[in-house]
């Protein structure tokens, strides 16, 4: 089955063409093109929703054409279109969603809408039936921080999420305050490798029951610290802040693994590119003797491949797939 995956949920326009072999039940990525809008949003220090949606419209055809050209396939080879319908920026979602509808109509193929957060987890599902379930999945990005219980590749239960800022927002807002280039996450990550855990920052909700996160207080604490200590060391600050984040994630992940008897831990989302967080979870896997899955960085950030994987699994294996629930209106929250 050849699947076209489309993601325009935030500031990246992405198309991917994947082949799903129904015999081996493995995915093969034929192309995965991501067009970034960092330049367009850079001067604002963050994503401007209207600019994002206009950029999507400007880029959508060329990104599609690049993805098809790289795949070596033609529209008539596509068997299914999968598209993000939320959560995300509404104006941006509508561009990809409407394109998918037009494409499906003229190519005479079915389309399916996909939950973006679940799709991040699905970025680890190149061979979805070879993973030991249940698994606990942590999705961390600019818009989301959520913990889920993965019972099977197409059956996930939400355990908890952020009650205020997402972890990626924390990185972005702190870096904006420090006047670092946008996006700030990679800059702070690089700096953190040069520093030590010499500052003490709060670890929000670490001892609270449940699986919710809160990063707004940590953001304020870091910003206040830099105001009170103007001579702070940036590398130490980045390292200490990331250490606080890791501590919270590791504690919550361990609790979920124990509670649900998980055999695998899955990390995903744009912030999963952070080297300190990746390393912390790899070590966590060794300590707990549990399998840890983290996608390569290109599949951590928003991409069409994860949408294609999630859409295919939902289309082929979700009971009631033809009952009309394959089309969800674009939504800021799924």
């Amino acid at each position, binding site marked *: 089955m050849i699947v076209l995956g489309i993601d325009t949920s935030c500031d990246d326009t992405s198309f991917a063409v994947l082949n799903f072999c129904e015999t081996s039940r493995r995915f093969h990525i034929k192309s995965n093109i991501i067009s970034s809008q960092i330049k367009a949003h850079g001067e604002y220090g963050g994503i401007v929703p209207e600019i994002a949606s206009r950029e999507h419209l400007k880029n959508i055809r060329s990104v599609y054409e690049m993805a098809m050209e790289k795949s070596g396939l033609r529209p008539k080879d596509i068997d299914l279109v999968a598209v993000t319908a939320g959560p995300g920026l509404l104006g941006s979602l509508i561009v990809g969603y*409407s394109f998918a509808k037009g494409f499906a109509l003229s190519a005479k193929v079915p389309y399916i809408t996909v939950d973006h957060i679940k799709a991040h987890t699905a970025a680890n599902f190149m061979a979805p039936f070879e993973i030991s379930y249940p698994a606990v999945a942590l999705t961390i990005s600019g818009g989301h921080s959520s913990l889920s219980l993965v019972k099977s590749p197409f059956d996930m239960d939400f355990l908890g999420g952020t009650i205020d800022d997402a972890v990626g927002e924390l990185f972005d*807002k702190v870096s904006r305050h420090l006047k670092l280039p946008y996006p700030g996450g990679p800059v702070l990550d690089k700096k953190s490798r040069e520093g030590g855990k010499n500052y003490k920052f709060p670890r929000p909700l670490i001892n609270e029951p449940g699986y919710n996160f809160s990063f707004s207080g940590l953001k304020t604490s870091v910003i206040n610290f830099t105001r009170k200590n103007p001579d702070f060391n940036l590398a130490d600050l980045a390292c200490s802040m990331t250490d606080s984040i890791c501590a919270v994630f590791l504690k919550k992940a361990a609790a979920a693994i124990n509670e649900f008897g998980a055999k695998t831990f899955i990390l995903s989302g744009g912030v999963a590119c952070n080297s300190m967080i990746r390393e912390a979870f790899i070590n966590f896997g060794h300590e707990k003797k549990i399998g840890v899955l983290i996608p390569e960085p290109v599949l951590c950030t928003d991409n069409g491949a994860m949408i294609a994987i999630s859409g295919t699994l939902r289309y082929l294996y979700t009971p009631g797939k033809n009952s009309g629930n394959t089309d969800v209106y674009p939504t800021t929250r799924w």
Partner: protein
Amino acid sequence: MIQEKTIKLVFNTVYEKMSVTVLKGSAPEFHCEYFEKRRNAFNADKIIAGAMSSCAVTIDDIAGVYVVCGPGSFTGIKLGLSVTFGLLCGVSGKLKADGISLLDYLIFGASVPAYAGKKVLAVVPGVKGEFFCKAAEISSNGPKASFDSVSCEFVTSSEKIVDDLKPDILICEPACAAVFEDRVLASRYAEGIVTVRFSAEGVASFIGYIEGIDSARALPLGPIYLKDTYVHKPKTEIA
């Protein structure tokens, strides 16, 4: 420009009322209008499919698509163009598409002998009280001569329309209620607002005019926004 084969699809989503028209040759075969708040994107494909089904045609029979590129709702513009891009990509270049301006359509609709010699202003309301406009002087020699005097599209306020531009007639689509609700315009143009409906016959006539007489009204497939919504850089300091 789309010619030769005869079946065309015309798609308008730039204000709340979405419409799909199927033309066979220069005659309207089917026209439907749809309005449900915040559901246009959800139903766009279903309405197009329904329109084709009503005319017993498939996408393979369609020679081309005309889509209204604006001005109007920014989300509506993106919706119409995105669906059109999807339609084009799904058949790998077998379908041709052109854009049309809603303001051109309004001026065309008002290009009748009754208004010859009148200064007209086609208006489409924006969401923040602004008006997207295009001015022209209606000629007695037909629409082509009227379009020879047409201005560029621009954004202005109702005060400037009344005080500076002072057109004889305002033209708008009847569904654009904000034009009728604007007090400044109502005080000056109580009797001088001409409505040009985005109807099956009107669409057929305008497309026929584009294909037969004035190909300059067929636009490249790009949005007509006329306005940046984010012209000022936000404060970057966090309180």
